[in-house]
């Protein structure tokens, strides 16, 4: 398919779900209601760490209006000695996360749940549940969890033969880093910390579950994967997956935080016990206390380089918080940290540390922003030490096609160098700066994923198209899919309707995440559409009584392939659709593929800031995101991913952080004091889309969504250094932190 003749691919078409979203009629999970519906409420641990000795729900059960109560006894147990992976999760931890089992592991950990005829009654009834806790000392921060006298969260976790809060490790090595450091002319080693942050989706978790008298469950929920919802709910409740229909509601943001279940299994059991549909919606406070944010981290980064800028060795040691149960994203941290660079000797090592906060969930390139932060900061310092432009330092060491990355793979053709060169050439990089202003750059990488996807393309009797796909749409992917299908069929994209199926109406499809929705769904939609075209051509051939090989499809019609095939007027999609019964059946095709060929994504960011030296406030003046996206099927939504990720990074760098009080409770569980960027904080976010088509994808698509969060932390930090000459190694760089450092720097002079 030639770029220059694309009619729809590359066009900013109106998304198919757009009109309901701008008129308020789109159905998000909390918007759905059913007759007879009752409300569920969760009782949560008031302690950051406690053994649960007993739970007495009798008073709650007797309370007027209460229809059902659930505790851990109702949830299927997954014994801690038997790993049970499901995607990147492990059901041993999932069953203990949705409801505390032996222990409450964080303040807000669910301990029981109640369904009643009103939200108020359900909440009241929760207060009547009597839990006998043995309160234990808690540890929140990594250092506290690793201290010699730290409270051990799980007696089944050991490290180096002793009970520990280190739940796992991961390492990548290449070459010989000791030899590499020996060759270096300059070596810089620094320690970094980042605070935990939340994905910040505006829509709280919500679900509505109805279990019929025969035990068959229907779940509407806000999730990034209806098949994950079905699988996890089935495993946690013991209901066979064939008896669960999980329907994805429109989702109000996820960023990875909705790739697991919290409420669905509880609502399912409550509905089964009560015989009524049960709706459960988290409050913002519950979201902040008890859903999975990302890890806080500590890291030590050491990079050595020659005078000419060649990196000879690089090492990153990372500690990431997992929360109360194992599973921090050390894979992303140690895998992505050095990925943009061609380094002969490298080592990354990650520790997964449990502590008494909510179990972390994925957040947009999980682990990679943490992995990249320290590396991109130290590179900035090396560039300064060597008198090199920071982009030139990166260009000197940039990974290219054929580079073997420290985390293992050898790269195919990709556009990292192009992102650096585009940054150097961009107007932004040349724009003058004023007093107290500075400019920083940083790069980043994310693996991207392929994975299972299913689609169904059906031609309607009136000659239009219905496409059903399997992944919840959180960024506008339906528009991209419509573009592709319309392009292949050569028809107006408005004739293509794209829907997201549920677990009963479409084949297995993996999560919406991993920057894979458009990548994977376009593969199966392409295959299905091509099969449909084959059927249409075969039908035309039958009508014309010629060989199907002699029929081509162009601009929405079947045509004889050449003069030799015969002089037949073309048959349009509408005409063929009307004659579908002559083909032996309805015209449609589906595909279910475990897609492969997703290749990593690379990006480079340029950030300008102005620092108020008397208040320590930092204003982002200008920001440019440059990224290789393979092929921008729908450019506006590609830009949107780049802009959204960059602003999340700015928030993480400047003002977002979880604050804990001495009891281990989150002190800022709301949008007032968990400070995400507001409209007046931000400048326009400029984007520069680079298209080096992915050779392994029919339209050349690379995943887009996650890379944009990765470089931003260091880009902002390096800009602040350029502005005021102070290197911040700890995030967030909030005003008191900045002012303190400026004062100390001034005093030192």
């Amino acid at each position, binding site marked *: 398919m030639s770029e220059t003749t694309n009619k729809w691919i590359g066009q900013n078409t109106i998304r198919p779900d757009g009109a309901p979203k701008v008129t308020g009629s789109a159905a998000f999970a909390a918007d759905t209601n059913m007759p007879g519906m009752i409300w569920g409420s969760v009782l949560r641990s008031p302690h950051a760490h406690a053994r649960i000795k007993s739970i007495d729900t009798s008073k709650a059960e007797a309370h007027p209006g209460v229809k059902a109560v659930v505790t851990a006894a109702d949830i299927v147990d997954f014994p801690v000695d038997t790993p049970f992976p499901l995607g990147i999760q492990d059901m041993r931890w999932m069953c203990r996360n949705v409801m505390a089992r032996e222990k409450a592991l964080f303040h807000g950990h669910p301990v029981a749940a109640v369904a009643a005829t009103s939200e*108020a*009654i359900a909440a*009241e009834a929760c207060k009547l549940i009597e839990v006998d806790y043995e309160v234990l000392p808690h540890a929140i921060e990594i250092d506290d969890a690793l201290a010699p006298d730290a409270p051990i969260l799980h007696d089944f976790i050991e490290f180096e033969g002793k009970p520990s809060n280190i739940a796992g490790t991961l390492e990548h090595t290449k070459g010989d880093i000791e030899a590499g450091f020996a060759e270096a002319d300059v070596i810089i080693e620094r320690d970094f910390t980042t605070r935990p942050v939340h994905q910040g989706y505006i829509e709280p978790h919500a679900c509505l579950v109805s279990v019929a008298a025969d035990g068959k469950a229907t779940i509407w929920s806000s999730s990034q994967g209806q098949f994950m919802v079905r699988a996890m709910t089935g495993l946690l409740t013991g209901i066979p997956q064939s008896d669960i229909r999980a329907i994805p509601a429109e989702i109000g943001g996820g960023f990875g935080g909705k790739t697991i279940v919290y409420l669905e299994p509880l609502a399912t059991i409550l509905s089964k016990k009560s015989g009524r549909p049960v709706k459960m919606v988290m409050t913002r*406070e519950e979201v902040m206390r008890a859903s999975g944010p990302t890890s806080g981290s500590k890291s030590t980064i050491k990079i050595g380089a020659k005078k000419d800028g060649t990196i000879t060795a690089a090492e990153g040691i990372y500690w990431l918080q997992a929360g109360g149960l194992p599973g921090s994203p050390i894979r992303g941290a140690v895998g992505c940290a050095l990925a943009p660079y061609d380094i002969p000797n490298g080592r990354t090592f990650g520790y997964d540390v449990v502590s008494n906060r909510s179990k972390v969930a994925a957040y947009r390139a999980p682990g990679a922003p943490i992995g990249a932060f320290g590396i991109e900061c130290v590179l900035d310092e090396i560039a300064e030490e060597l008198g090199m432009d920071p982009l030139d330092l990166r260009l000197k060491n940039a990974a290219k096609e054929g580079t073997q990355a420290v985390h293992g793979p050898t790269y195919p053709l990709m556009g990292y160098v192009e992102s650096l060169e585009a940054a150097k050439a961009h107007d932004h990089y040349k724009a003058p700066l004023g007093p107290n202003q500075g400019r920083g750059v940083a790069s980043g990488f994310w693996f991207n994923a392929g994975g299972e996807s299913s689609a169904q393309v059906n031609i309607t009797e009136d000659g239009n198209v219905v496409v059903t796909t399997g992944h919840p749409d959180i960024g506008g992917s339906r528009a991209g899919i419509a573009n592709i299908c319309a392009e292949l069929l050569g028809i107006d994209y408005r004739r293509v309707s794209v829907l997201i199926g549920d677990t009963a109406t479409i084949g297995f499809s993996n999560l919406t995440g991993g920057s894979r929705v458009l990548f994977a769904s376009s593969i199966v939609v392409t295959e299905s559409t091509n099969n449909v075209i084959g059927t249409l051509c075969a039908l035309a051939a039958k009508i014309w009584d010629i060989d199907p090989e002699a029929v081509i499809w162009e601009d929405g019609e079947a045509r004889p392939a050449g003069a030799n095939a015969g002089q037949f007027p073309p048959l349009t999609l509408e005409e063929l659709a009307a004659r579908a019964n002559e083909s032996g059946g309805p015209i449609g095709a589906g595909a279910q593929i475990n897609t492969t060929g997703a290749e990593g994504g690379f990006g480079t960011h340029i950030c300008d800031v102005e620092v108020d030296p*008397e*208040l*320590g*406030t930092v*204003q982002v003046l200008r920001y440019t995101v440059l990224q290789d996206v393979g092929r921008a099927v729908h450019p506006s939504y590609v830009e949107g991913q780049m802009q959204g990720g960059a602003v999340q990074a700015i928030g993480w760098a*400047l*003002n977002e952080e979880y*604050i804990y009080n001495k009891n281990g409770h989150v*002190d*800022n569980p709301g*949008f*007032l*004091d968990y*400070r995400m*960027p*507001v409209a*007046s*904080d931000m400048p326009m976010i400029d984007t520069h889309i680079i298209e080096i088509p992915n050779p392994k994808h029919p339209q050349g698509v690379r995943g887009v969504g996650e890379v944009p969060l990765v470089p931003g932390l260091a880009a902002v930090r390096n800009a602040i250094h350029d502005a005021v000459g102070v290197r911040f190694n700890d995030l967030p760089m*909030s*005003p*008191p932190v900045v*002012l*303190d450092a400026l*004062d100390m720097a001034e005093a030192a002079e």
Partner: protein
Amino acid sequence: MTDTQYMAPQTLDEAVTAFAAGGEAARILAGGTDLLVQMGAGMVNPGVIVDVKKITELNSIEETADGGFVVGAAVAGAVLEEHPTFGKVWPGVLEGLNLIGSTQIQGRASLGGNLCNGSPAADGVPAMVAAGAVLTVQGPNGRRDIPVKDVPTGPGKTSLAPGEIAVCFTFPPRPAGSSDAYLRMIPRTEMDIAVVGVGVNLTMKDGVCTDASVGLGAVAPTVLLVEDAAKALIGSKLDAAALDAAAAACSAACNPIDDKRGTIAYRTKVAGVLLKRTAAIAAKRAAGV
């Protein structure tokens, strides 16, 4: 099950009677931007909510013959902004009120609500303190006036007696060459509670400051009237030395806490920084009237 009652009396007398009868569990509702947040958080469960938005005296704005203003305690910030002259005479008071929260909050939040909620960080209060505004309250024992600076007594507490309702604020007339300003330090550009808030009211004549008053918020259990800062400004040309002295007086007056919004050291430093900036704005405005 809550037993909250709601009423919206048409007269102040009815409101006073109902509010007093409700005792400790009664709450006044103006804009609701504090009360409903507290109810939602489970911090308060009112027995009776007395909505005062139908009472004329609490919702009107009057410019008096002598150039002063009487502003109803429940007047929303957005409404006060639309008044043709109030913002020209008291831009600092107005901007303090209209920095609270968002546009949506400003459509509802009032000076009375902001003051009576008793937050040490209330944005509407420092400039009112600097303005010398007086609050009129009415209760079971009748009507009385309280200087705004004497209303807050501690975090969440005021000097209003049980059953007393805030009625209106009186802003005094000022000589020509007077204006005011309010600045606050917040980590973002909007939507945060003030880490420090400074209100400066001053009168300039021929380049000399002939009168000044400074209100300082978010750095002590109550908003402070910093008389030493005013003294440093009065009689000066607002030169660097005078501003430094006033800034130092503000820093010295600070008695803040470390909390999730700011540290003691930070607030103390910033109080001085903001004083200078706020005084400069007030002076520029004063020169223009």
